Protein backbone atom coordinates (compact mmCIF):
# COMPACT_ATOMS: atom_id res chain seq x y z
CA UNK A 1 0.00 0.00 0.00
CA UNK A 2 1.10 3.57 -0.59
CA UNK A 3 1.53 6.13 2.15
CA UNK A 4 2.77 9.69 2.15
CA UNK A 5 5.06 10.89 4.91
CA UNK A 6 4.62 14.65 5.18
CA UNK A 7 7.60 16.17 6.93
CA UNK A 8 6.77 19.18 9.09
CA UNK A 9 9.30 21.08 11.08
CA UNK A 10 10.09 24.50 12.49
CA UNK A 11 12.83 25.89 10.26
CA UNK A 12 13.59 28.81 12.59
CA UNK A 13 14.02 26.68 15.68
CA UNK A 14 15.94 23.85 14.05
CA UNK A 15 17.85 24.42 10.81
CA UNK A 16 18.64 28.06 11.60
CA UNK A 17 20.00 27.01 14.97
CA UNK A 18 22.27 24.34 13.50
CA UNK A 19 25.94 24.72 12.74
CA UNK A 20 26.93 24.43 9.05
CA UNK A 21 28.49 21.04 9.82
CA UNK A 22 25.25 19.82 11.40
CA UNK A 23 23.22 21.07 8.44
CA UNK A 24 25.58 19.30 6.08
CA UNK A 25 25.26 16.06 8.04
CA UNK A 26 21.45 16.34 8.00
CA UNK A 27 21.54 16.74 4.20
CA UNK A 28 23.83 13.72 3.87
CA UNK A 29 21.65 11.62 6.19
CA UNK A 30 18.45 12.64 4.40
CA UNK A 31 19.82 11.72 0.97
CA UNK A 32 21.27 8.49 2.35
CA UNK A 33 17.88 7.51 3.78
CA UNK A 34 16.22 8.17 0.42
CA UNK A 35 18.79 5.88 -1.18
CA UNK A 36 18.20 3.22 1.45
CA UNK A 37 14.42 3.34 0.89
CA UNK A 38 15.02 3.12 -2.86
CA UNK A 39 17.24 0.06 -2.42
CA UNK A 40 14.57 -1.55 -0.23
CA UNK A 41 11.83 -0.97 -2.76
CA UNK A 42 10.00 1.36 -0.37
CA UNK A 43 10.58 4.64 -2.18
CA UNK A 44 8.16 6.04 -4.72
CA UNK A 45 9.34 9.65 -4.63
CA UNK A 46 10.95 11.96 -2.08
CA UNK A 47 11.18 15.72 -2.34
CA UNK A 48 12.17 18.58 -0.06
CA UNK A 49 10.32 21.87 -0.41
CA UNK A 50 11.44 25.49 -0.59
CA UNK A 51 10.63 27.53 2.52
CA UNK A 52 7.01 28.75 2.73
CA UNK A 53 7.96 32.38 2.02
CA UNK A 54 7.75 31.50 -1.68
CA UNK A 55 4.30 29.99 -1.49
CA UNK A 56 1.48 31.10 -3.78
CA UNK A 57 -2.04 30.06 -2.90
CA UNK A 58 -4.33 29.54 -5.87
CA UNK A 59 -8.11 29.41 -5.73
CA UNK A 60 -10.81 29.40 -8.38
CA UNK A 61 -14.16 30.77 -7.26
CA UNK A 62 -17.08 31.44 -9.60
CA UNK A 63 -14.75 30.90 -12.52
CA UNK A 64 -12.26 33.54 -11.36
CA UNK A 65 -8.75 32.63 -10.29
CA UNK A 66 -7.09 34.36 -7.38
CA UNK A 67 -3.48 34.06 -6.30
CA UNK A 68 -2.31 35.14 -2.86
CA UNK A 69 0.97 34.64 -1.09
CA UNK A 70 1.88 33.30 2.31
CA UNK A 71 1.73 29.90 3.90
CA UNK A 72 -1.61 28.12 3.91
CA UNK A 73 -1.63 27.75 7.67
CA UNK A 74 0.40 29.96 9.99
CA UNK A 75 2.09 27.50 12.30
CA UNK A 76 5.61 27.15 13.53
CA UNK A 77 5.96 23.71 11.99
CA UNK A 78 5.72 24.03 8.22
CA UNK A 79 5.53 21.40 5.51
CA UNK A 80 9.16 20.99 4.45
CA UNK A 81 9.06 17.92 2.28
CA UNK A 82 7.43 14.61 1.59
CA UNK A 83 8.34 11.00 1.01
CA UNK A 84 5.89 8.86 -0.90
CA UNK A 85 6.45 5.24 0.10
CA UNK A 86 5.29 1.74 -0.59
CA UNK A 87 4.83 -0.13 2.71
CA UNK A 88 3.21 -3.34 3.81
CA UNK A 89 0.77 -1.69 6.20
CA UNK A 90 0.36 1.39 8.39
CA UNK A 91 2.74 0.15 11.08
CA UNK A 92 5.34 -0.62 8.43
CA UNK A 93 4.87 2.95 7.13
CA UNK A 94 5.25 4.30 10.68
CA UNK A 95 8.49 2.37 11.06
CA UNK A 96 9.82 3.82 7.79
CA UNK A 97 8.69 7.34 8.80
CA UNK A 98 10.53 7.04 12.10
CA UNK A 99 13.76 6.52 10.16
CA UNK A 100 13.47 9.84 8.29
CA UNK A 101 16.33 11.94 9.74
CA UNK A 102 14.07 15.00 10.17
CA UNK A 103 11.77 12.98 12.48
CA UNK A 104 14.31 13.87 15.18
CA UNK A 105 13.56 17.58 14.74
CA UNK A 106 10.00 17.83 13.49
CA UNK A 107 6.86 15.78 12.96
CA UNK A 108 6.16 13.26 10.22
CA UNK A 109 2.52 12.97 9.25
CA UNK A 110 1.83 9.51 7.82
CA UNK A 111 -1.25 9.22 5.64
CA UNK A 112 -2.58 6.42 3.51
CA UNK A 113 -3.38 7.17 -0.10
CA UNK A 114 -7.02 7.52 -1.00
CA UNK A 115 -8.14 6.06 -4.25
CA UNK A 116 -10.67 8.35 -5.89
CA UNK A 117 -13.53 6.12 -7.01
CA UNK A 118 -14.25 6.00 -10.72
CA UNK A 119 -17.81 7.11 -11.31
CA UNK A 120 -19.74 6.31 -14.42
CA UNK A 121 -20.50 9.32 -16.54
CA UNK A 122 -24.24 9.99 -16.66
CA UNK A 123 -25.63 9.14 -20.09
CA UNK A 124 -26.16 11.96 -22.61
Amino acid at each position, binding site marked *: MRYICLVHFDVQATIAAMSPAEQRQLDIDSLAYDE*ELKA*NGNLVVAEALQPPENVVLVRVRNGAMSATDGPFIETKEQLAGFVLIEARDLNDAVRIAAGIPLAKYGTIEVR*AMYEIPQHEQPAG
Partner: protein
Amino acid sequence: MDQGCIETVWRQESRRVLATLIRLLGDFDRAEEALNDAFLAATERWPQDGVPANPRAWLVSAGRFRAIDRMRRRSRFARIAGTLAVIEEGEMATTAEPIADDQLRLIFVCCHPELPPDAQVALTLRETCGLLTEEIAAAYLARPATIAQRIVRAKARIRDLALPYEVPEPKQMLQRLDAVLRTIYLIFNEGYAASHGETAVRVDLCAEAIRLARLLRGLLREPQSELEGLLALMLLNHARRNARTDPAGDIVLIADQDRSLWDRAAIAEGAHLAEAALRMRPLAGYAIEAAIAAAHATAPTAEATDWARIVGLYDLLAQADTSPVIALNRAVALAMRDGPEAGLGEIDALLAAGPLTGFRYAHAARADLLRRLGRRDAAREAYVAALELTQQGPERRFLERRLRALGSPPP
Protein backbone atom coordinates in the same frame (compact mmCIF):
# COMPACT_ATOMS: atom_id res chain seq x y z
CA MET B 1 9.99 -19.24 -10.12
CA ASP B 2 7.75 -16.25 -10.13
CA GLN B 3 6.34 -13.62 -7.78
CA GLY B 4 3.57 -16.06 -6.80
CA CYS B 5 6.13 -18.48 -5.38
CA ILE B 6 7.68 -15.80 -3.19
CA GLU B 7 4.19 -14.79 -2.07
CA THR B 8 3.55 -18.39 -1.00
CA VAL B 9 6.82 -18.53 0.90
CA TRP B 10 5.93 -15.21 2.55
CA ARG B 11 2.61 -16.63 3.76
CA GLN B 12 4.19 -19.85 5.00
CA GLU B 13 7.42 -18.57 6.44
CA SER B 14 7.34 -14.83 7.15
CA ARG B 15 6.02 -15.17 10.74
CA ARG B 16 8.56 -17.86 11.61
CA VAL B 17 11.42 -15.91 10.08
CA LEU B 18 10.25 -12.78 11.93
CA ALA B 19 10.10 -14.66 15.24
CA THR B 20 13.70 -15.82 14.83
CA LEU B 21 14.95 -12.43 13.62
CA ILE B 22 13.44 -10.76 16.70
CA ARG B 23 15.52 -13.10 18.84
CA LEU B 24 18.68 -12.60 16.78
CA LEU B 25 18.35 -8.83 16.48
CA GLY B 26 16.72 -8.13 19.83
CA ASP B 27 14.18 -5.67 18.48
CA PHE B 28 10.79 -5.86 16.71
CA ASP B 29 11.34 -3.00 14.29
CA ARG B 30 14.85 -4.02 13.37
CA ALA B 31 13.54 -7.55 12.77
CA GLU B 32 10.70 -6.31 10.58
CA GLU B 33 13.16 -4.28 8.54
CA ALA B 34 15.39 -7.33 8.22
CA LEU B 35 12.42 -9.48 7.21
CA ASN B 36 11.64 -7.05 4.38
CA ASP B 37 15.32 -7.07 3.38
CA ALA B 38 15.34 -10.85 3.32
CA PHE B 39 12.34 -11.08 1.01
CA LEU B 40 13.75 -8.34 -1.19
CA ALA B 41 16.94 -10.40 -1.46
CA ALA B 42 14.81 -13.44 -2.30
CA THR B 43 13.06 -11.63 -5.16
CA GLU B 44 16.49 -10.67 -6.50
CA ARG B 45 18.25 -13.99 -6.10
CA TRP B 46 15.74 -16.81 -6.34
CA PRO B 47 14.69 -16.21 -9.96
CA GLN B 48 18.34 -16.84 -10.98
CA ASP B 49 19.57 -19.24 -8.32
CA GLY B 50 16.33 -21.14 -7.74
CA VAL B 51 14.48 -21.52 -4.45
CA PRO B 52 16.92 -22.72 -1.77
CA ALA B 53 16.41 -26.14 -0.20
CA ASN B 54 15.62 -24.56 3.15
CA PRO B 55 14.00 -21.19 2.35
CA ARG B 56 13.43 -20.40 6.01
CA ALA B 57 17.10 -20.73 6.95
CA TRP B 58 18.06 -18.79 3.83
CA LEU B 59 15.69 -15.94 4.74
CA VAL B 60 16.83 -15.82 8.38
CA SER B 61 20.43 -15.72 7.28
CA ALA B 62 19.82 -13.07 4.59
CA GLY B 63 17.80 -10.92 7.00
CA ARG B 64 20.44 -11.14 9.69
CA PHE B 65 23.25 -10.40 7.25
CA ARG B 66 21.51 -7.34 5.86
CA ALA B 67 20.62 -6.10 9.35
CA ILE B 68 24.24 -6.29 10.43
CA ASP B 69 25.32 -4.57 7.26
CA ARG B 70 22.77 -1.83 7.78
CA MET B 71 23.79 -1.36 11.40
CA ARG B 72 27.45 -1.13 10.45
CA ARG B 73 26.61 1.69 8.10
CA ARG B 74 24.74 3.44 10.87
CA SER B 75 27.21 2.58 13.59
CA ARG B 76 28.49 6.06 14.16
CA PHE B 77 26.98 5.61 17.60
CA ALA B 78 28.87 3.54 20.14
CA ARG B 79 25.58 2.23 21.58
CA ILE B 80 24.71 0.45 18.35
CA ALA B 81 28.25 -0.86 17.96
CA GLY B 82 27.81 -2.68 21.27
CA THR B 83 24.51 -4.25 20.16
CA LEU B 84 26.12 -5.18 16.88
CA ALA B 85 28.81 -7.20 18.63
CA VAL B 86 26.14 -9.12 20.54
CA ILE B 87 24.20 -9.85 17.36
CA GLU B 88 27.26 -10.95 15.44
CA GLU B 89 28.22 -13.35 18.18
CA GLY B 90 24.65 -14.63 18.59
CA GLU B 91 23.98 -18.23 17.71
CA MET B 92 22.64 -18.77 14.26
CA ALA B 93 20.33 -21.68 15.00
CA THR B 94 17.85 -22.46 12.25
CA THR B 95 17.10 -26.06 13.18
CA ALA B 96 13.55 -27.10 14.01
CA GLU B 97 13.55 -26.84 17.77
CA PRO B 98 14.88 -23.30 18.28
CA ILE B 99 12.58 -22.13 15.47
CA ALA B 100 9.56 -23.58 17.28
CA ASP B 101 10.78 -21.90 20.45
CA ASP B 102 11.13 -18.58 18.62
CA GLN B 103 7.50 -18.76 17.59
CA LEU B 104 6.52 -19.55 21.17
CA ARG B 105 8.65 -16.65 22.40
CA LEU B 106 6.84 -14.35 19.99
CA ILE B 107 3.40 -15.52 21.14
CA PHE B 108 4.33 -15.21 24.81
CA VAL B 109 5.78 -11.73 24.44
CA CYS B 110 2.78 -10.51 22.39
CA CYS B 111 0.46 -11.81 25.14
CA HIS B 112 2.59 -10.61 28.02
CA PRO B 113 0.46 -9.65 31.06
CA GLU B 114 2.35 -6.33 31.23
CA LEU B 115 0.60 -5.28 27.99
CA PRO B 116 -3.03 -4.10 28.00
CA PRO B 117 -5.43 -6.75 26.60
CA ASP B 118 -6.34 -4.74 23.48
CA ALA B 119 -2.64 -4.29 22.74
CA GLN B 120 -2.05 -8.02 23.19
CA VAL B 121 -4.79 -8.73 20.66
CA ALA B 122 -3.51 -6.23 18.07
CA LEU B 123 0.12 -7.30 18.46
CA THR B 124 -0.71 -11.00 18.28
CA LEU B 125 -2.83 -10.57 15.15
CA ARG B 126 -0.15 -8.53 13.40
CA GLU B 127 3.08 -10.19 14.46
CA THR B 128 1.99 -13.80 14.93
CA CYS B 129 -0.87 -14.10 12.42
CA GLY B 130 0.59 -11.66 9.90
CA LEU B 131 -2.56 -9.54 9.51
CA LEU B 132 -2.08 -5.99 8.27
CA THR B 133 -2.80 -3.06 10.59
CA GLU B 134 -5.62 -2.04 8.25
CA GLU B 135 -7.13 -5.55 8.36
CA ILE B 136 -7.08 -5.61 12.16
CA ALA B 137 -8.73 -2.18 12.20
CA ALA B 138 -11.43 -3.39 9.81
CA ALA B 139 -12.03 -6.50 11.91
CA TYR B 140 -12.46 -4.42 15.05
CA LEU B 141 -14.25 -1.54 13.31
CA ALA B 142 -11.52 0.75 14.62
CA ARG B 143 -9.52 3.43 12.84
CA PRO B 144 -6.21 2.15 11.42
CA ALA B 145 -4.42 4.99 13.25
CA THR B 146 -5.79 3.70 16.58
CA ILE B 147 -4.54 0.17 15.95
CA ALA B 148 -1.20 1.48 14.65
CA GLN B 149 -0.67 3.48 17.85
CA ARG B 150 -1.64 0.53 19.98
CA ILE B 151 0.99 -1.60 18.26
CA VAL B 152 3.67 1.11 18.43
CA ARG B 153 3.01 1.63 22.15
CA ALA B 154 3.01 -2.09 22.88
CA LYS B 155 6.38 -2.47 21.16
CA ALA B 156 7.73 0.52 23.06
CA ARG B 157 6.53 -1.03 26.30
CA ILE B 158 8.19 -4.33 25.46
CA ARG B 159 11.41 -2.40 24.87
CA ASP B 160 11.12 -0.10 27.89
CA LEU B 161 10.28 -2.87 30.33
CA ALA B 162 12.82 -5.13 28.60
CA LEU B 163 10.20 -7.90 28.55
CA PRO B 164 12.17 -11.10 28.02
CA TYR B 165 11.89 -12.84 24.67
CA GLU B 166 11.67 -16.33 26.07
CA VAL B 167 9.46 -19.33 26.68
CA PRO B 168 8.31 -19.13 30.33
CA GLU B 169 9.84 -21.45 32.90
CA PRO B 170 7.68 -24.53 33.70
CA LYS B 171 6.75 -22.89 37.03
CA GLN B 172 5.25 -19.86 35.30
CA MET B 173 3.98 -21.74 32.27
CA LEU B 174 0.39 -22.25 33.41
CA GLN B 175 -0.10 -18.63 34.37
CA ARG B 176 1.49 -17.27 31.22
CA LEU B 177 -0.37 -19.76 29.03
CA ASP B 178 -3.57 -18.55 30.66
CA ALA B 179 -2.88 -15.02 29.36
CA VAL B 180 -2.17 -16.35 25.84
CA LEU B 181 -5.37 -18.40 25.81
CA ARG B 182 -7.39 -15.44 27.04
CA THR B 183 -6.07 -13.39 24.11
CA ILE B 184 -6.86 -16.17 21.63
CA TYR B 185 -10.37 -16.50 23.06
CA LEU B 186 -10.86 -12.71 22.89
CA ILE B 187 -9.97 -12.85 19.20
CA PHE B 188 -12.34 -15.77 18.63
CA ASN B 189 -15.22 -14.16 20.50
CA GLU B 190 -14.84 -10.91 18.62
CA GLY B 191 -15.23 -12.85 15.38
CA TYR B 192 -18.00 -15.03 16.78
CA ALA B 193 -20.20 -12.33 18.23
CA ALA B 194 -19.26 -9.54 15.77
CA SER B 195 -20.36 -7.50 18.73
CA HIS B 196 -20.75 -4.11 17.12
CA GLY B 197 -22.96 -3.25 14.22
CA GLU B 198 -23.99 -5.24 11.21
CA THR B 199 -21.86 -8.06 9.95
CA ALA B 200 -19.82 -6.89 7.01
CA VAL B 201 -16.80 -8.26 5.21
CA ARG B 202 -14.41 -8.88 8.07
CA VAL B 203 -11.25 -10.83 8.44
CA ASP B 204 -12.25 -14.24 9.79
CA LEU B 205 -11.07 -13.76 13.36
CA CYS B 206 -12.53 -17.14 14.38
CA ALA B 207 -10.36 -18.92 11.83
CA GLU B 208 -7.32 -16.89 12.96
CA ALA B 209 -7.94 -17.81 16.61
CA ILE B 210 -8.28 -21.50 15.74
CA ARG B 211 -5.12 -21.34 13.63
CA LEU B 212 -3.26 -19.73 16.56
CA ALA B 213 -4.46 -22.38 19.00
CA ARG B 214 -3.35 -25.13 16.60
CA LEU B 215 0.01 -23.46 16.14
CA LEU B 216 0.48 -23.16 19.90
CA ARG B 217 -0.53 -26.78 20.34
CA GLY B 218 2.07 -27.87 17.83
CA LEU B 219 4.75 -25.81 19.57
CA LEU B 220 4.23 -26.82 23.21
CA ARG B 221 6.00 -29.96 24.29
CA GLU B 222 3.46 -31.01 26.94
CA PRO B 223 -0.26 -31.16 26.17
CA GLN B 224 -2.15 -28.62 28.28
CA SER B 225 -5.79 -29.25 29.18
CA GLU B 226 -6.66 -25.52 28.92
CA LEU B 227 -5.37 -25.37 25.38
CA GLU B 228 -6.95 -28.67 24.31
CA GLY B 229 -10.22 -27.49 25.82
CA LEU B 230 -10.09 -24.06 24.21
CA LEU B 231 -9.30 -25.46 20.78
CA ALA B 232 -12.17 -27.95 21.16
CA LEU B 233 -14.54 -25.21 22.30
CA MET B 234 -13.67 -22.95 19.37
CA LEU B 235 -13.92 -25.79 16.82
CA LEU B 236 -17.33 -26.83 18.14
CA ASN B 237 -18.74 -23.31 18.14
CA HIS B 238 -17.21 -22.44 14.77
CA ALA B 239 -18.62 -25.68 13.29
CA ARG B 240 -22.11 -24.20 13.55
CA ARG B 241 -21.24 -20.91 11.78
CA ASN B 242 -23.28 -21.60 8.62
CA ALA B 243 -26.43 -22.41 10.60
CA ARG B 244 -26.27 -19.59 13.16
CA THR B 245 -27.82 -17.00 10.87
CA ASP B 246 -30.35 -17.21 8.05
CA PRO B 247 -29.69 -15.79 4.57
CA ALA B 248 -31.00 -12.39 5.76
CA GLY B 249 -28.36 -12.36 8.50
CA ASP B 250 -30.88 -12.97 11.28
CA ILE B 251 -30.03 -15.12 14.30
CA VAL B 252 -31.23 -18.73 14.35
CA LEU B 253 -31.26 -20.31 17.81
CA ILE B 254 -29.47 -23.61 18.25
CA ALA B 255 -32.77 -25.48 18.69
CA ASP B 256 -33.98 -24.18 15.31
CA GLN B 257 -30.72 -24.57 13.40
CA ASP B 258 -30.50 -26.82 10.34
CA ARG B 259 -28.09 -29.41 11.69
CA SER B 260 -27.18 -30.58 8.20
CA LEU B 261 -25.33 -27.24 7.84
CA TRP B 262 -23.05 -28.04 10.76
CA ASP B 263 -19.45 -28.91 9.95
CA ARG B 264 -19.37 -32.58 10.93
CA ALA B 265 -15.60 -32.98 10.61
CA ALA B 266 -14.95 -30.03 12.92
CA ILE B 267 -17.52 -31.37 15.41
CA ALA B 268 -15.89 -34.81 15.39
CA GLU B 269 -12.47 -33.28 15.99
CA GLY B 270 -13.80 -30.89 18.65
CA ALA B 271 -15.76 -33.58 20.49
CA HIS B 272 -12.75 -35.89 20.48
CA LEU B 273 -10.47 -33.15 21.86
CA ALA B 274 -13.10 -32.16 24.43
CA GLU B 275 -13.42 -35.69 25.71
CA ALA B 276 -9.66 -36.04 26.09
CA ALA B 277 -9.36 -32.64 27.77
CA LEU B 278 -12.09 -33.54 30.25
CA ARG B 279 -9.99 -36.50 31.42
CA MET B 280 -6.82 -34.43 31.91
CA ARG B 281 -5.84 -33.14 35.36
CA PRO B 282 -5.89 -30.44 36.56
CA LEU B 283 -9.28 -30.05 34.91
CA ALA B 284 -9.53 -26.81 32.95
CA GLY B 285 -12.59 -24.59 32.69
CA TYR B 286 -12.26 -24.52 28.90
CA ALA B 287 -12.39 -28.34 28.90
CA ILE B 288 -15.76 -28.30 30.70
CA GLU B 289 -17.11 -25.60 28.40
CA ALA B 290 -15.93 -27.66 25.42
CA ALA B 291 -17.71 -30.74 26.81
CA ILE B 292 -20.92 -28.68 27.08
CA ALA B 293 -20.51 -27.48 23.48
CA ALA B 294 -19.87 -31.09 22.44
CA ALA B 295 -23.08 -32.24 24.13
CA HIS B 296 -24.99 -29.70 22.03
CA ALA B 297 -23.13 -30.37 18.81
CA THR B 298 -23.34 -34.17 18.91
CA ALA B 299 -27.09 -34.31 19.65
CA PRO B 300 -28.85 -35.60 16.50
CA THR B 301 -31.83 -33.30 17.17
CA ALA B 302 -32.52 -30.43 19.57
CA GLU B 303 -35.00 -32.66 21.45
CA ALA B 304 -32.39 -35.38 21.87
CA THR B 305 -29.98 -33.00 23.68
CA ASP B 306 -28.69 -34.57 26.89
CA TRP B 307 -29.74 -31.76 29.25
CA ALA B 308 -28.99 -33.80 32.38
CA ARG B 309 -25.36 -34.10 31.26
CA ILE B 310 -25.22 -30.41 30.42
CA VAL B 311 -26.60 -29.39 33.83
CA GLY B 312 -24.06 -31.72 35.47
CA LEU B 313 -21.21 -30.12 33.49
CA TYR B 314 -22.41 -26.64 34.48
CA ASP B 315 -22.44 -27.76 38.13
CA LEU B 316 -18.82 -28.81 37.68
CA LEU B 317 -17.95 -25.54 35.95
CA ALA B 318 -19.66 -23.48 38.67
CA GLN B 319 -17.33 -25.07 41.25
CA ALA B 320 -14.29 -23.75 39.39
CA ASP B 321 -15.77 -20.47 38.20
CA THR B 322 -18.31 -18.54 40.25
CA SER B 323 -19.09 -16.10 37.43
CA PRO B 324 -22.81 -15.19 37.32
CA VAL B 325 -22.76 -15.72 33.55
CA ILE B 326 -22.04 -19.42 34.14
CA ALA B 327 -24.83 -19.53 36.71
CA LEU B 328 -27.13 -17.98 34.08
CA ASN B 329 -26.21 -20.61 31.50
CA ARG B 330 -26.76 -23.31 34.09
CA ALA B 331 -30.24 -21.89 34.81
CA VAL B 332 -31.11 -22.08 31.10
CA ALA B 333 -29.97 -25.72 30.97
CA LEU B 334 -31.92 -26.44 34.15
CA ALA B 335 -35.05 -25.03 32.50
CA MET B 336 -34.56 -27.50 29.66
CA ARG B 337 -34.11 -30.41 32.04
CA ASP B 338 -36.73 -29.57 34.70
CA GLY B 339 -39.06 -27.10 32.97
CA PRO B 340 -39.18 -23.29 32.58
CA GLU B 341 -40.41 -22.67 36.14
CA ALA B 342 -37.24 -24.15 37.65
CA GLY B 343 -34.98 -22.03 35.41
CA LEU B 344 -37.00 -18.88 36.02
CA GLY B 345 -36.55 -19.14 39.78
CA GLU B 346 -32.79 -19.33 39.33
CA ILE B 347 -32.64 -16.39 36.90
CA ASP B 348 -34.83 -14.21 39.14
CA ALA B 349 -32.50 -14.94 42.05
CA LEU B 350 -29.45 -14.09 39.90
CA LEU B 351 -31.00 -10.82 38.72
CA ALA B 352 -31.97 -9.90 42.28
CA ALA B 353 -28.32 -10.40 43.32
CA GLY B 354 -27.37 -7.46 41.08
CA PRO B 355 -24.39 -8.06 38.78
CA LEU B 356 -26.46 -9.34 35.85
CA THR B 357 -29.03 -6.53 35.71
CA GLY B 358 -27.18 -4.83 32.82
CA PHE B 359 -26.51 -8.10 30.95
CA ARG B 360 -28.80 -8.37 27.94
CA TYR B 361 -28.73 -12.16 27.76
CA ALA B 362 -30.09 -12.45 31.33
CA HIS B 363 -33.21 -10.49 30.35
CA ALA B 364 -33.53 -12.32 27.02
CA ALA B 365 -33.28 -15.72 28.76
CA ARG B 366 -35.84 -14.67 31.36
CA ALA B 367 -38.15 -13.40 28.61
CA ASP B 368 -37.93 -16.72 26.80
CA LEU B 369 -38.87 -18.71 29.90
CA LEU B 370 -41.80 -16.38 30.64
CA ARG B 371 -42.96 -16.76 27.04
CA ARG B 372 -42.84 -20.55 27.34
CA LEU B 373 -44.87 -20.30 30.56
CA GLY B 374 -47.49 -18.24 28.70
CA ARG B 375 -46.92 -15.16 30.87
CA ARG B 376 -47.14 -12.79 27.93
CA ASP B 377 -47.08 -9.41 29.72
CA ALA B 378 -44.09 -10.29 31.88
CA ALA B 379 -42.34 -11.77 28.81
CA ARG B 380 -42.95 -8.58 26.85
CA GLU B 381 -41.44 -6.46 29.63
CA ALA B 382 -38.38 -8.69 29.79
CA TYR B 383 -37.87 -8.58 25.98
CA VAL B 384 -38.09 -4.78 26.10
CA ALA B 385 -35.50 -4.73 28.91
CA ALA B 386 -33.20 -6.93 26.79
CA LEU B 387 -33.75 -4.79 23.71
CA GLU B 388 -32.77 -1.64 25.60
CA LEU B 389 -29.40 -3.23 26.37
CA THR B 390 -28.75 -4.51 22.82
CA GLN B 391 -26.76 -2.64 20.14
CA GLN B 392 -26.05 -5.32 17.57
CA GLY B 393 -28.35 -5.34 14.53
CA PRO B 394 -29.15 -9.07 14.20
CA GLU B 395 -29.71 -9.42 17.97
CA ARG B 396 -32.06 -6.44 17.98
CA ARG B 397 -34.04 -7.89 15.08
CA PHE B 398 -34.33 -11.21 16.88
CA LEU B 399 -35.78 -9.58 20.00
CA GLU B 400 -38.11 -7.43 17.88
CA ARG B 401 -39.41 -10.54 16.12
CA ARG B 402 -40.12 -12.13 19.50
CA LEU B 403 -41.98 -9.02 20.63
CA ARG B 404 -44.07 -9.01 17.46
CA ALA B 405 -44.87 -12.69 17.96
CA LEU B 406 -46.24 -11.73 21.36
CA GLY B 407 -48.59 -9.34 19.59
CA SER B 408 -46.89 -6.13 20.56
CA PRO B 409 -44.82 -3.89 18.32
CA PRO B 410 -41.25 -3.14 19.42
CA PRO B 411 -40.95 0.21 21.23
